[in-house]
């Protein structure tokens, strides 16, 4: 099938944007696994809470920017509550407990969302300053979508630098690598754990608000995104931030190009990709040996 240049350009922009926003969600999922050895099924719900709180804040105060600030922080608080009062008691136990707890939380949060906001789709009002479209080559592209692309890319770059270069990043990696040693050196590891969980939650919340103004906000979105991000984290290697970013980009582009070429089999593409990676590198592209 002949595909026009403008279509490819459009799909590429969508793919990168999808990749970067998915990376925001996947980053938390993989960091939490890397450090806490917990597979957090409720992570998609944190993304969803970001979107719903964004809807409420932006409707209440009429400001998208306030929503972008407040909603992720509120999601961070929810994350802290989940970590301190839920997961902390289960560290070091059979992973099945983690799965049961976080999956249960995901179901509860979904029920709560329907109870509070109802079952119908909602949407965050995008700021008027970002309305309209710009011409990029042959493609007319919404300004807001470019904004999402830029913000999520910058955030991912900042997180990357932080993990790679800062003392905090070193501490995070060290805690993941050898918890006991870090503990013995006089650092309160449980604070690091809470910090990482909250950080992951905030990133997911940001993604929720950003996408909540370009997509519908609905009670199914939490479970929807968790499947995509699991694929990403598995491909990238459980626990690896870099891996998650590369894999997210790959998944984003495959989804976007897939929609162009064969929309109905895009999901099959993704899972095939995951299967192939697992066959060749069972720990994922950047898995196991390279923590964080």
């Amino acid at each position, binding site marked *: 099938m002949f595909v026009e240049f403008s279509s490819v350009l459009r799909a590429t922009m*969508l793919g990168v944007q999808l990749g970067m926003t998915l990376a925001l969600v996947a980053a938390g999922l993989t960091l939490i696994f890397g450090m806490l050895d917990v597979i957090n099924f409720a992570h998609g719900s944190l993304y969803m809470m970001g979107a719903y709180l964004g809807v409420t804040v932006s409707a209440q105060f009429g400001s998208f920017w306030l929503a972008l600030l407040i909603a992720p922080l509120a999601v961070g608080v929810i994350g802290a509550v989940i970590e301190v009062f839920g997961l902390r008691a289960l560290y070091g136990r059979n992973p099945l407990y983690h799965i049961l707890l976080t999956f249960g939380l995901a179901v509860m949060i979904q029920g709560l969302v329907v109870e509070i906001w*109802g079952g119908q789709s909602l*949407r965050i*009002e995008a700021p008027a300053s970002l309305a309209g479209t710009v011409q990029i080559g042959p493609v*007319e592209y919404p300004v807001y979508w470019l904004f999402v692309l830029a913000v999520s890319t910058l955030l991912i770059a900042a997180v990357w630098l932080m993990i790679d270069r800062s003392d905090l990043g070193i501490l995070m990696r060290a805690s993941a690598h050898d918890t006991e040693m870090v503990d013995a050196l006089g650092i309160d590891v449980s604070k690091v754990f809470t910090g990482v969980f909250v950080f992951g939650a905030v990133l997911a919340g940001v993604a929720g608000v950003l996408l909540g103004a370009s997509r519908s906000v*609905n009670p199914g979105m939490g479970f929807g995104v968790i499947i995509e991000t699991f694929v990403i984290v598995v491909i990238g290697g459980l626990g690896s931030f870099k891996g998650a970013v590369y894999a997210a980009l790959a998944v984003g582009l495959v989804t*976007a190009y897939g*929609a162009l070429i064969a929309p109905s089999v895009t999901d099959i593409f993704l899972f095939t990709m995951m299967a192939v990676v697992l066959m060749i590198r069972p720990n994922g592209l950047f898995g196991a040996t390279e923590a964080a």
Partner: protein
Amino acid sequence: MSHDSGTSTGSRGSTNRSASTTSRRRFLVSGAAAGATALAGCAGGGGSDTLTVGHVLPTSGTYALLGESIMNGFDLYLEQNDGQLGGYEVETVQRDTAGETDTGVTITNEFLVQEGVDALVGPVSSAVAIAMMQTVQQESSAIWLNANAGDYRVTQDGCMDLHFRTSFNDWQTSAPLAQWVYENVADNVVLSYADYAFGQNSKNFFQEAFEEAGGEVVDEVAAPLGTDDYSPFLGDIESSGADAAFSFFAGSDAVNYISQFSDFGLDDELTQTGSGFLLSEDTLPAQGEAALGKYSLLHYTATKETDRNQTFVSNYSEEHDRQPNVYACQGYDSAQALDIAASNADSTDASDLASALSGAELDSPRGEFSFDPDTNEPLQSMDVREVVQGDDGVENEVVATIDDIELPDWGCSL
């Protein structure tokens, strides 16, 4: 609410328990009698003075809102009639299908065999309806008021005398718009739709009617159900060069499609039209200004200015703090249809109810309609609506009403 024996639609948590409680009690009281009636196939054998209604509807999952709206509408009619339909005390049982095919069939079976219901109301999903057909036919012990599932194949493949659509079929929400679009909007269109049975049916029905009217279909674009980002598909729609688009999307798909259609600046190039679910009461608040100026076709519009509808809207809003949607109207009409059936038949026997309802007329909030005696499909007018700015956000305004629509019979002749 005394009529529903504790299985209130509001309290989802207790539904399973109360359904099974009802089951035990009913088995003692009239279950055996209902069973005997079904076996003997004769009327009046039970002599029961209650009418048991089973709601085969989702209260969780994607279609939860639709299921709840149908029950709200049903309950409103029931309340207005002191919990009675056709002179019978009504008892309702309800179980959550979650929109799942298997669950829907299991519940149907349970309602028919264990609960001995006299009427089934639902389902929301056409996949569930098609899977239910065999059980309903086999048991032949309850009248089936199909309060939403619009797939024409229920009539084509089922053609059951017990099945009445108190809602619509997928031909009605697409084909009749074709002539109007051809005359008022454009003579060429691109078709875009959610790639599953209902979307494909709607697309095909519209295409057939549009070409018959003399129009040309330039291109078609299928997007998977549950697509989040329509950007690649919008590219295809734009490059088709068509002057108008006809689309079928519903729920959150409709929200994403319509908002992004507008975000990508396609409003300058094409006029968007579609089946009514594309721009409905449930999606408009989220679609907002992106929906302005777009046209759609549906059998019920909450803003329609008839006395009958205004009364319904104010009664419903009083109870639920929101405007009724099309599903609430369908639930309301299901209760109304059962009322007519039971009072004309003076019986709760399924085949009596069905023959009493065949060809009957309903004074619905959507406008008067009757059941086609050949197919039990609703013979109804369809409203063409345009999205306009209202006092309280955007809303649909009826710009034309298409009357006397001749329905296909899909080879069904009852």
